[in-house]
Structures are given as structure tokens and as C-alpha cells.
């Protein structure tokens, strides 16, 4: 498979949505480039789904605009041929078969019944194709949603929480698929409320909290925000604390010892040795991306 046309840029410009006095999305600006997987991240209730719904023409923005290849989604001739989207894993009629679900929406994107059959096999639902969706597991619904999004073999794919309900094998499969899409030059946008769930999949991250943008960069640049921490334990706790203060290191108590932020273990060890302070533990603690993510999204609270 390969994209049927040039992959579009997805862009959000000054986008806002208010529900009464609640600003679900507030002055949000970012863009999603082709040829990469972009993670759209934020805690639950941050406004991710509302933003995606505005991008896809389902919800009307109260400010700004959301564009697909420079044009609002709904103004494209056959928009589902440009962007394939799966928004909620529960949006199926329980009495329809998986294959029947695909065939319902195939006509309007120009996909044949044969294509539906191929896709349902492709997402691993072949044996369940003739079964009613009411009996599908969450993971199977997730796969069916993906198949629906891929009906037109679109150059851009938007998936809301695609890892929800998938087993580890399914998550690995999804990851490989999304990486392949990006490698083919497609635009891929996936949302998640857990960074660690997508950090091995995404190239770029867009992080929002409370409807506002808090960070947008490559994953590597996000990693650069992570500062190392060192755990130190000494029987001479007072002397150790004094040493930290002399050097201007930020410290906080942690169990029987201290955590020093932003200072490598070697430097602390050398300083303690020079000052004649006995150490019982000296441990480097890498700060995970998840911590950076939590700090970023918690900071505006």
C-alpha cells in the first residue's frame, strides 16, 4: 500500500472551543507534518478529542480554524479520501457485522467490497468478519475502527487513543503499521493520554493541558528537557546537605537520603570525597520522559 496522493499538512491556527463558560480548547496552534508520526498528548479532559473533532469538521470552533492541506476538512470534495480517522472505539452499531460496518461506509469513499474484505483481513479480524460487532472486544473494535479509517487508503491518518484496549502484541503491530505509514510519507496523528504508550512510535509531540498548548517539538527535543537526578545517602546527612547548599545544588529529602537534581553522580561523588563525607549510596536516576510530560501538563494547573 502507498498513499494515493500527496500527504497533507494538518494545521490548527488559534483554535478555540468554549462550552458555555468552559474553555475546552484555548488559542491552540500547531501543525502536523507529513512523513512522521505525531503524538497529540495530554491528560484526560485536556481537549484532545474536541480538537480532533474540530479538525474533522464534526464540531464547530468558537475561535480560529483547523485545516487539512490549507482547507477545512468539510470543504474537501471527498474528505475521507484525504484523512482517514478513527475517533471512538465504541462508535459501531452492535447489530452489524464487522464487514457490514466497513461496507456501509465504503460507498462514500469509493472503496469496493473487495477492499473491505482485504482490510478486515489486514487488521486481523478475518475470522470475525461475519460476526456482529456487539460481541467484539475493545481491541477488536479498535482494529475495526482502524480498518474504517483506512478504507480509502488515505494519505493522512488520525487516530484517537489507538492503543486503548489493544493487547501488547496488538500495540506492537499498531506501532509497526504507523511507522510504516510515516515511512511511506503519510501524515500520521495519534492522540494519547500516556506518553510512554506512544514514545516508541512518535517522531514529534504536541502536548496540551487544559486546552492550551504546553509543548510542541520533536521527541528528541522533549527528551532534552529531561534532567538527570542523583540519589545520595550518607550517615553525615547534615554535612551532605551543607555541601549541596555550598555548591548551589537543589536538593530534596527522599527516604534516608537526598535527591539532587541536575547534577551527575560523578560530580557529587567527587565533591563528597573532597569534603571527606562518607557516602553509602550514590545512584543516578534518569528522569523518564513521562516525568517531563507530567511536569509539563501539571505545570499549568
Amino acid at each position: 500500500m502507498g498513499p494515493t496522493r500527496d500527504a497533507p499538512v494538518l494545521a490548527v491556527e488559534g483554535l478555540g472551543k468554549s462550552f458555555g463558560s468552559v474553555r475546552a480548547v484555548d488559542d491552540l496552534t500547531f501543525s502536523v507534518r507529513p512523513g512522521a508520526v505525531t503524538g497529540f498528548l495530554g491528560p484526560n479532559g485536556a481537549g484532545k478529542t474536541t480538537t480532533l473533532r474540530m479538525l474533522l469538521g464534526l464540531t464547530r470552533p468558537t475561535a480560529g480554524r483547523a485545516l487539512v492541506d490549507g482547507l477545512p476538512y468539510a470543504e474537501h470534495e471527498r474528505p475521507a479520501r484525504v484523512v482517514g480517522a478513527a475517533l471512538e472505539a465504541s462508535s459501531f452499531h452492535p447489530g452489524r457485522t464487522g464487514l457490514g460496518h466497513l461496507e456501509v461506509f465504503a460507498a462514500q469513499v469509493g472503496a469496493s467490497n473487495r477492499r473491505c474484505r482485504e482490510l478486515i483481513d489486514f487488521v486481523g479480524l478475518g475470522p470475525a468478519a461475519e460476526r456482529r460487532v456487539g460481541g467484539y472486544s475493545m481491541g477488536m473494535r479498535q482494529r475495526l475502527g482502524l480498518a474504517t479509517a483506512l478504507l480509502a487508503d488515505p494519505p493522512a491518518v488520525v487516530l484517537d487513543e489507538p492503543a486503548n484496549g489493544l493487547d501488547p502484541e496488538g500495540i506492537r503491530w499498531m506501532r509497526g503499521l504507523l511507522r510504516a505509514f510515516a515511512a511511506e510519507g503519510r501524515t500520521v496523528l495519534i492522540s494519547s493520554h500516556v506518553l510512554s504508550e506512544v514514545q516508541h512510535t512518535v517522531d514529534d509531540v504536541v502536548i496540551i493541558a487544559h486546552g492550551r498548548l504546553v509543548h510542541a517539538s520533536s521527541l528528541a527535543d522533549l527528551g532534552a528537557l529531561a534532567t538527570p537526578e542523583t540519589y545520595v545517602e550518607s550517615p553525615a546527612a547534615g554535612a551532605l546537605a551543607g555541601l549541596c547548599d555550598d555548591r548551589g545544588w537543589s536538593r530534596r529529602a527522599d527516604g534516608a537520603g537526598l535527591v539532587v537534581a541536575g547534577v551527575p553522580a560523578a560530580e557529587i561523588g567527587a565533591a563528597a570525597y573532597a569534603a571527606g563525607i562518607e557516602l553509602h549510596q550514590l545512584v543516578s536516576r534518569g528522569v523518564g520522559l513521562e516525568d517531563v510530560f507530567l511536569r509539563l501538563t501539571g505545570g499549568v494547573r
Partner: protein
Amino acid sequence: MRAALVAEYRKLVSTRLWWVLLIALAAYLAFVGGVLAFSIVFAPDGQDTTMPGGADAAAGVYGLVNAIGYVFPLVIGSLMITTEFRYQTITQSLLVEPRRTVLLAGKLVVAIPLGLVYGLAGMAALVAVSAPLLALKGDGAFVTDPDVLAVILLGVVVTALWTVIGVGFGAVLPNQVAAVVVLLAFTQFVEPIARLALGAFDATSSVARFLPGAAADGLIGASLIGEMGGGSGDLLPRWAALLVLLGYAAVLAGVGRLTTLRRDIG
């Protein structure tokens, strides 16, 4: 637009509801039609002053497809919209066709052949059971009488109109449970009582003719409730009845487009 029609057709036939309701309609009409025909045929002589006879009786029985059957096409029509909201498939429907007027138009158009199928099945069941019973009485089943034939044909047509009106109603009230409850209450309770009550006074009897069920009776030219109310003269002429029914469909669909289908989805 052609693709929208294909999609609506597939939505309909890919679940079991349409034929479950179709069988229910046919069985219900066969039963009630049989009971009514039986009571006409075997009414004791001399006491049947309230019972119509002859061609009127046949028209009244065949008109049941409208008089008591109309709740079925209304419900299936409304379900064409309300199931989309109940199961959130409206999201996917609008992703593949963001033009909401096209989505609604597709449903309204597909409702016509669907309603004709319902009308044909309902009428066939009704005639199959009641005509032989009516024929037991010397004057026959009148299935070839031009007036009775008109009732049969227009009974099928009016069922299609009810289906279209049902789609419009579903667009106005997309909550599935609420829509079904309101339709049942209106067709089984509110409208029959309103027709009898309004028909009881000269000042209001002309208003009663414009109620949807009364207008449909006017279109097919037979009215069970009208006859029970003591006079069948208070029906609209066919052309006016047709316009009234089309008006109901247009107003409901228009209101649904400007309310339900203008709102944010999600």
C-alpha cells in the same frame, strides 16, 4: 448523492431491525384485519347499525394499514436517524459525508422505497386474511371495486409517506427512546383522542382533519376513527391531504436539519 443512497441502503439492510418490524407490521395487520372482518361478517343481523357494510366495510378494513399500521413506518423511519445517534455512528457517517443536508436527504429518499415495501407487505397481509372473510358475506370482498382499489393502492403510498415523516421526526428528536415513546403515545393515544375530541364540536372539527393521521385517512379516503366518531365526511380531499402530509415531512425534516444536524457531534 448516489453513494449516500447506497450507504443508507446498506445501513438499513445490514441490521435485523427492518425485517423484524416488517414481520411485526404484517402480523399485527393480519390479526386486527381478521378480527375486524370477522366481526363485520358475523355481526348479528338487525344490530349492525353501527357497522358499515359492503364496499365501505371493505375500504375500512383495508384502510387499517394506515389507521392502525402507521406507527410502524413512523418508527422505522425515525430509527434511521436515532440509531445513528444512539450508537454514535453519526460520527463516521459525517466523516465520510460532512454535507449534513446530503446525509439527511439520503435518508429521506431511501425511506420512500422502504416505506413502499412496508406498505406492500402490510397491505398484502391485511388483504390475504380479511378478504376471504369479507367474501363470506354475500356482497364480497370488493377488491376490484375502484374505490376499494384506490384505498389499497393509496394505503401503500401513505405508508411510504409515513416513513419519510418518521425520518423527519427522528431528525427533530434524535434520542431513540424518547422518539419511540413519543411516536407510540402520539399515534396510539394523543391523536385518536384529539381527533374524536376535536371532531365532536363543529367549531373544531375542521381542524381535526389536519392532524397527520386524519390527513392520511383523507388521502386514502377511508377512516375507521371517522366512522366510529359518527361521520366520515370530515376528511380532507385527496390532493389537500397529500399536501398536508408532505408539509409535515418537509417541516419536520427542515427543523431537524436546522437543529439536530447543525449541532456539534460528539
